[in-house]
């Protein structure tokens, strides 16, 4: 077990493109850090550099106290779980799991003991003598985990380990991964493009975009205080709604309503030499006006164009007569937009299941005025309210 430090790590390919740019990360001993971002953001490359499978073009990588830039993967004492599991097909489950120990020249008795132990943790005992080809996807995934944990390495590296499983199994294995990591308390770096996995698994989440680190923080931090449009749009499902805004005094004029902003927000905005602004509201910060009672906040009428009932909650989509354009959002749309039903110019709101919203009918909506996020349209940076820690 060890902390891992990435000090201005850069990956430059021979053709000059930079997959990872000056990445700084301190991963603490025993921490579960998630690297998340859309495909092509450099997260896997970063992980593979930690593993030693990719050369580091620039910067320094430390595992524990040692600089490991020039060390071969085998000398770094780390274990990796691959996206496609990479089990050795000619070996049984037992041999697969024993392989790292054999390579480390551990005596047979210890190997047997360790493998049995790991198999017990992973519920694989009865499958030890089967070949990977006779196992189900979930079992293979567990064998891959087993191969990583037998050796008690300094760190686990996981490269989208759950992305090949079906949805139900993924949720199950997610809990499993979390349980194992808690139990072993081994430093873990986990790469995923799935923000749900990132939010549920990690102690801390690092969001990457185009090879650059955007923000590192606890899931809650990223959700409540995203640094820019990209993080705001990436974290949370369904994504945050973005819309243009005009500010006059303390009144923010949104496409569908006007809202009185908080004192702290007004101060924050004041110190910002305002260019164009943009505002973001998460779907869960809307509510059916009938259900909120007399909580402060603007109410307004919209026409429900799409309604999705999840049983426990309702999603409604309504149109706004405005368009938002920002480079970071276009990128997001290209990557995660497909997951959302919302079209451009549509707003999603999550309502309580008891709401009587109907498709095609008009509905009185309420919005939480304290949960507005303001962004600078040009830089994409979020403008924090005054006094935010």
């Amino acid at each position, binding site marked *: 077990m060890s902390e891992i430090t990435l000090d201005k790590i850069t990956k430059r390919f021979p053709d000059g493109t930079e997959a990872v740019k000056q990445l700084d990360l301190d991963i603490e001993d025993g921490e579960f850090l998630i690297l998340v971002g859309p495909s092509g953001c450099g997260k896997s490359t970063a992980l593979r550099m930690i*593993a*030693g*499978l990719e050369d580091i073009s620039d910067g320094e990588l430390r595992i524990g106290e040692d600089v490991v830039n020039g060390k*071969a*993967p*085998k000398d770094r004492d*780390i*274990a*990796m779980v*691959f*996206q*496609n*599991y*990479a*089990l*050795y*097909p*000619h070996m049984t489950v037992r041999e697969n799991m024993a*392989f*790292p120990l054999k*390579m*480390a020249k551990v005596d047979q008795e210890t190997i047997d003991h360790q493998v049995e132990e790991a198999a017990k943790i992973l519920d694989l005992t009865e499958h030890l003598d089967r*070949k*990977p*080809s*006779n*196992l189900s*996807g979930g079992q*293979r995934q567990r064998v891959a985990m087993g*191969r990583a944990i037998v*050796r008690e390495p300094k760190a686990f*590296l996981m490269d989208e380990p759950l992305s*090949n499983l079906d949805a139900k199994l993924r949720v199950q294995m997610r809990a499993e991964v979390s349980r194992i990591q808690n139990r072993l308390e081994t430093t873990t770096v986990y790469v995923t493009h799935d923000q749900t996995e990132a939010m549920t698994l990690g102690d801390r989440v690092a969001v990457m975009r185009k090879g650059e680190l955007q923000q590192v923080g606890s899931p809650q931090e990223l959700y409540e205080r995203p640094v820019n449009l990209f993080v705001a749009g990436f974290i949370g499902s369904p994504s945050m709604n973005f819309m243009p805004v005009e500010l006059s005094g303390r009144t923010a004029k949104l496409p569908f309503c006007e809202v009185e902003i908080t004192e702290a927000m007004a101060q924050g905005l004041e110190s910002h030499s305002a260019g164009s602004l943009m505002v973001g509201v998460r779907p869960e910060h809307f509510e059916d006006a009938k259900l909120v009672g007399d909580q402060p906040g603007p109410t307004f009428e919209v026409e429900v164009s799409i309604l999705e009932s999840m049983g426990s909650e309702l999603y409604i989509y309504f149109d706004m007569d405005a368009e938002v354009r920002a480079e970071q959002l276009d990128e997001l749309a290209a990557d995660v937009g497909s997951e959302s039903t919302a079209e451009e110019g549509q707003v999603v709101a999550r309502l309580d299941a008891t709401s009587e919203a109907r498709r095609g009918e008009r509905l009185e909506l309420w919005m939480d005025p304290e949960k507005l996020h303001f962004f600078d349209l040009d830089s994409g940076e979020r403008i924090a309210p005054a006094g935010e820690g």
Partner: protein
Amino acid sequence: METRSPQERIIWLLGLIVVIFYALFPVLWIISLSLKTPATVTVKPDEGFWGTLVPSDATFKNYEALFKDGLDGPFLKPLINSIGIALIATLIAIVLASFAAYAIARLEFPGKTLVLGGALAIAMFPPISTVGPLFDMWRSLGLYDTWPGLIIPYLSFSLPLAIYTLVAFFREIPWDLEQAAQVDGATPFQAFRKVIVPLATPGMFTAAILVFIFAWNDFLFAISLTSSDASRTVPAALAFFTGDSQFTQPFANIAAAAVIVTIPIIVFVLIFQRRIVAGLTSGAVKG
């Protein structure tokens, strides 16, 4: 597999019979020939086609004659030469070809296309045009009429084929497997030996069969670069068989020898066929 209509099946069956007959009839004929006495070999009895094929006076004399004088006889020493030379050439070719193919499949190095192109060019080079220079070179190097004298040209002509076969197999093996092995603590060579080689065995056996058959069947180099039983292989030795008198050709003896040299090939293929199991990599990655 799709189900076939009875009509289709009959056509397939007929096709199969034609192909099998076409392929195996000469073998049948040579077996028949090898069992005949010198008297009936060339004489056409009035028994029609099947009567000619099935010898009326079947005898194993021809086979006995081949081994009669042991190592001084016409056949045993060349047989040993053939087996030895072909096996050694195969072994060396497979080891060298695996290294070369692995490098070509996995590494980016300058001149990679040149190596592959060169290998292909060598494979297409007509062997006959190298025989003359080789004869002179081998004489001055002392390789003439020795085992290495044959093994070397066999290697150079069979390596390209082996490399091409193995490159295809190595490319099929997911790269993640070696990387997993390296992260698991294996050196690159250990990863190659413990993970890649076992997975590429079918490919190696395929390549081995090709090399072995090439070396085993070669006549051109064998006849040109040997002068005695010290290194003469069976195909060349057959040409030196003598009949009972200078006017009779030893057809029956040659046929018997031909049957015997076919056996190792069949055995070789049968053994290795079992190892050429498809789908060995299934289950490595998500299927």
